[in-house]
């Protein structure tokens, strides 16, 4: 029997200016897991996601989403970039940003209509931001901006969700709201991949984890591999963290 992998990365190497930031990564992510990618700064966590999504060109290796190249599977994938990667002074509203999530399904030239608007309003409601739909995005707090980004991913109605540091700069309420939505997605059989920084919350939030530091250190179920040994290998010597059993 062949196991069904949502994401399959083979021998992936990515370099900036001839310096590898990801080296020979093999990663097989089974369908329906909520996975954290952890590792120190500069470990290549965001780069890995960007390379999977074809935003960066790898110098070697291949990526497949449900057995096919990403370009053929775009509609199965939703992406939430780092909040800091966009200009929040851009003249647009929360609803409009969420609507951008529908652009991929629409394809070139076609414009979003009533159906897309309805889906976007539902997504805003799901993240508790419906009452802010007409607010200019620079007038939102950091947590609210992150919720809008999450709503934009939800409206893509994908099978796999990639999120780059969704908990950065958000308050505790938003963090809980976001993780609950991610857990719901997993329950619905979706695969969720999250670049994560807070090691303390890994066992509570996620069921799958990948340790990354330029090379892949380990990947697997949190229960089996989230231990001092792997943490030390990833972050350097004597890294101590309380692991909740």
């Amino acid at each position: 029997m062949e196991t069904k992998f949502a994401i399959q990365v083979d021998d992936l190497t990515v370099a900036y200016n001839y310096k590898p930031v990801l080296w020979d990564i093999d990663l097989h992510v089974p369908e329906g897991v909520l996975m954290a990618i952890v590792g120190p700064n500069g470990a290549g966590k965001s780069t890995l996601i960007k390379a999977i999504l074809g935003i960066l060109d790898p110098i070697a290796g291949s990526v497949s989403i449900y057995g096919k190249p990403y370009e053929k599977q775009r509609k199965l994938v939703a992406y939430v970039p780092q909040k800091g990667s966009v200009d929040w002074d851009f003249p647009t509203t929360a609803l409009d940003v969420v609507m951008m999530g529908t652009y991929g399904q629409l394809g070139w030239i076609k414009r979003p209509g009533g159906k897309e608007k309805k889906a976007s309003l539902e997504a805003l409601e799901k993240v508790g931001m419906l009452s802010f739909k007409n607010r200019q995005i620079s007038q939102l707090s950091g947590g609210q901006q992150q919720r809008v980004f999450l709503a934009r991913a939800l409206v893509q109605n994908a099978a796999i969700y990639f999120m780059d540091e969704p908990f950065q700069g958000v308050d505790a309420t938003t963090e809980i709201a976001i993780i609950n939505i991610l857990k719901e997605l997993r329950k619905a059989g979706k695969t969720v991949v999250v670049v994560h920084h807070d090691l303390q919350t890994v066992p509570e939030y996620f069921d799958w984890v990948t340790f990354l530091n330029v090379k892949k250190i380990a990947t697997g179920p949190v229960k089996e591999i989230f231990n001092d040994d792997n943490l030390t290998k990833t972050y350097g010597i004597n890294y101590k963290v309380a692991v909740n059993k």
Partner: protein
Amino acid sequence: MTSPQIEIQLIAVVVAIACAIPGVFLVLRKMALISDAISHSILPGIVLGFFITHDLNSPLLILMAAVTGVITVVLVEAIQRTGLVKEDTAIGLVFPALFSIGVILIAKNANDVHLDVDAVLLGELAFAPFDRLIMGGVDVGPKSLWIMGGILISIIALLLLFYKELKVSTFDIGLSSALGISPLVMHYGLMSVSSVTVVGAFDAVGAILVVAMMIAPAATAYLLTSDLKKMLVLSVVFGVFSALAGYWMANLLDASISGSMSTMLGIVFLIVYLFAPQKGLIAVLYRQKQQRTEVSLLTFLLHLNNHTEIEERHINHLQEHINWQKVRSKTVLNLALKNNMIEIENKVVSLTEKGKDFTDLALEYIITNKDEKIEPMKDDFFLFRG
């Protein structure tokens, strides 16, 4: 109005609209300087095109100049990618080099033809009606009106077709790329359109002032709206207004038309910058003053909340305790009274129910930094509007 006057204004309006639309996206992409670079570095393209066609309005010349514009962008990005210099330095290296090649080409070869540096730099709208387009022996109007009209129609068509792609690739490159809307294609598309527009417009307003036509209307509109569609509309309105007002100013002062139009653009920007309701200078200063008062009010309310002792709350002691000057104390006291947050009995100040609730809410906001707690307060107080 004479017919050349009408034609000049018509050309000016078409140029203004054609420049304002790509200008909005250049401003939002923080690439205003690139339009400056393009407007200069297309010179060698124009000169080479002119040598081949001997016609300043030939489509080939426009095409060659547009290619030079795109080459400028490619060169700037290539130099930037070396990581040795930043973008502004790269721009500063590329466009003078290309521009000077154009200047030398003109000086060496074009002395006997109608193409001089002044004409390229400043343009001359007043002469535009003299160059007619004759089709089948019939005079159908000034050539530059047809050329700019064609460019404008293409720009509007492209905008309508690719509005959503332009929007998402400008706002979020990562998402755009992941969705399959190539930011690179949109980038070079916008650069090509900008180059063509600059080339078409340089004849009328000159290579330097065309930058004003692209950037100033968009920058002005940006101060007034937080909606991309409205920004596009406002930008066009400001461009058209400045073009027409500039034309009549030139008429009145007997001055350069393109110079007057750019001056008008500057004046419009200055007025909006001063008086814009949200982002304008006066609004900002007023808001800062309000915020200072509100911070004082909050400090005062917290003080009352913290102290039950009579002497701490005596009206005359407040001044020395909180260490404020008389005027400020009075403003704050009046503001609190006006909002029914305090009551004064026998010269002793105490919080009302409303004042207590307000202070509790504010405290909770300060401690937790949770926005939803203070949503209802946002309408009344600047302080909480972020």
